[in-house]
């Protein structure tokens, strides 16, 4: 594949690299850098029966769950900061038994991606000793056997083989998702990726996956990013597709480019409390919309201006009321 072939529309990238039934992970963290444009495309193409693995998910995850595409969820946290103390569609889906959910901690999930990236079957930690996280399973054996992407066991407690004291250790299983979806500030036509601000667990997620689809605020020439390679986060060879989509994380934030849209996220939380209202929202804002660009066209220019980041802050200064 030549480098130029990696640049494509979101519709093409999702069609090519995601299948129904895949194990998927999403980059970003709560209200920051959610791959919204790629998630909208997943919903339009009805990539369903997904096994999603994630540390702290919010807007993108909540939409995928609300759209009925998630069957299995391994997760540490589903909330949207102070805007949604628990993501509403996530909460409803778990309470109503619509998805199979199994809990880990943020560190444990991050270690699972790291193990996947390292090519080792598990990694040890002491996190969770004495908690129910290391005991209670949410996914039964039948499903574990059915799904290749699920580990045979959730967590195994063992003893330190290097010490006579035999200290207890928690082993978390490696995870190798089929695909990672991330949104970043800059990507090059050859797939080189640069993230500004916090990278969360994006890098380990990408390294652990069979495929990586990246959307970016700015699509630049490879030589521009290669002029300062120490600032780059993923090498070109790890990335399969590059989608140029400014505001591709909206309504979540993208450091240095725009803030999260408090009003949109708050309204989303209210709407998502009501099943019918939520269906209307997802139909009119996602399913029956041609592209993410068309969705952004429904957001007023004033709104987008009001969340534009100030260059010295990386976010939009709050106005005093």
């Amino acid at each position, binding site marked *: 594949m030549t480098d130029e072939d990696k640049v494509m529309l979101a519709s093409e990238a999702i069609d090519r690299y995601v299948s129904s039934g895949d194990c998927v992970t999403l980059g970003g963290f709560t*209200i920051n850098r959610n791959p919204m444009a790629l998630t909208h495309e997943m919903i339009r193409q009805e990539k369903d029966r997904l096994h999603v693995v994630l540390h702290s998910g919010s807007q993108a995850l909540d939409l995928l769950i609300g759209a009925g595409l998630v069957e299995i969820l391994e997760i540490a*946290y589903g*909330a949207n*900061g102070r805007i949604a103390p628990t993501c509403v569609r996530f909460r409803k889906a778990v309470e109503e038994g619509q998805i199979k959910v199994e809990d880990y901690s*943020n560190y444990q999930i*991050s270690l699972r991606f790291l193990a996947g990236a390292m090519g080792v079957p598990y990694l040890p930690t*002491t996190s969770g*000793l004495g908690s129910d996280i290391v005991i209670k399973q*949410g996914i039964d054996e039948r499903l574990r056997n059915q799904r290749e992407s699920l580990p045979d066991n959730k967590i195994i407690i063992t003893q330190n083989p290097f010490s006579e004291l035999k*200290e207890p250790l928690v082993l978390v299983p490696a995870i190798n998702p089929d695909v990672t979806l991330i949104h970043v500030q800059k990507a090059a036509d050859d797939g080189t990726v640069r993230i500004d601000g916090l990278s969360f667990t994006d890098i380990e997620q990408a390294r652990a996956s069979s495929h990586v689809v990246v959307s970016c605020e700015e699509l630049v020439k490879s030589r521009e990013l290669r002029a300062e390679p120490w600032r780059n986060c993923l090498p070109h060879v790890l990335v399969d597709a590059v989608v140029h989509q400014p505001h591709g994380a909206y309504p979540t934030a993208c450091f240095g480019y725009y803030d999260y849209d408090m009003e949109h996220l708050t309204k989303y939380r209210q709407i998502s409390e009501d099943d019918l209202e939520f269906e209307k929202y997802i139909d009119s804002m996602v399913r029956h919309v041609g592209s993410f660009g068309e969705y952004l066209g429904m957001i007023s220019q004033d709104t987008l201006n009001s969340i534009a980041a100030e260059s010295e802050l990386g976010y939009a200064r709050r106005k005093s009321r």
Partner: protein
Amino acid sequence: MSLEYSSMEMMTIAAARRIKDDDIVFCGTGVPLLAAVAAKKIHSPNCTVFFETGAIDPDLDEIPLSVADPRVMKGASHHGSLLDAFNFMQNNRTGPKVLGVLSGAQIDAYGNLNSTSIGSYTEPSIRFPGSGGACDVASFVGRTMIFMKHERRRFVDKLDYITSPGWLTGYSSRYDIGLTKGGPEVVISDLGVMSFDPETKRMYLSHNFESSSIEKIVDETGFNLDIDEAQQEPRPTKNELSILREKVDPLKLILR
């Protein structure tokens, strides 16, 4: 009796007073974050605030609403990954200095926390967000401070799910299971301050706030709470209140 401050302000200041100058504070958002920023501006200018998302010692010019808010990124000493942030809690140099600030939907007498679900785990009646990094922090760091809304349904005899390990069943049980560091040090609620007995590791009332009687605290606690040591927490000083209102949360994003 009407007071010139709210219970949330009292709670924030009571917590801030317990943050020391050489502490490295692991913070979530909301009142715990206000407490850390207030401590920094009132009496502990050198304490370092960091977030599980990997931001260490940012400017915090504006109050972040999530630990991934871009407001935790500006002016930081370092941006690491989640793995870096959790390793910062575990290494022998910085780990023991970390004061982890946690919260939950339910707490028991040994400071174990539930932020996962109510009812059976596989068929819960109420689902909460889950651990996030709370279980990790509770497992790793030198000391933990817990924030709770003081209600009988939250201070319970038995948790529906142990998300974050505290002193487990008391005495040496935490150590015996393999958690050799840390454990809850203090619980700050909107009614008072609780500590843990050095031997039994059971929660007791150390301070009630001016606005809350000891009887009310006992009433709102779903387990037997020792009150023999209880004394009144000093009310906020003018200086503490003015810094909190004018410099910490001037837009009243948290303190409504």
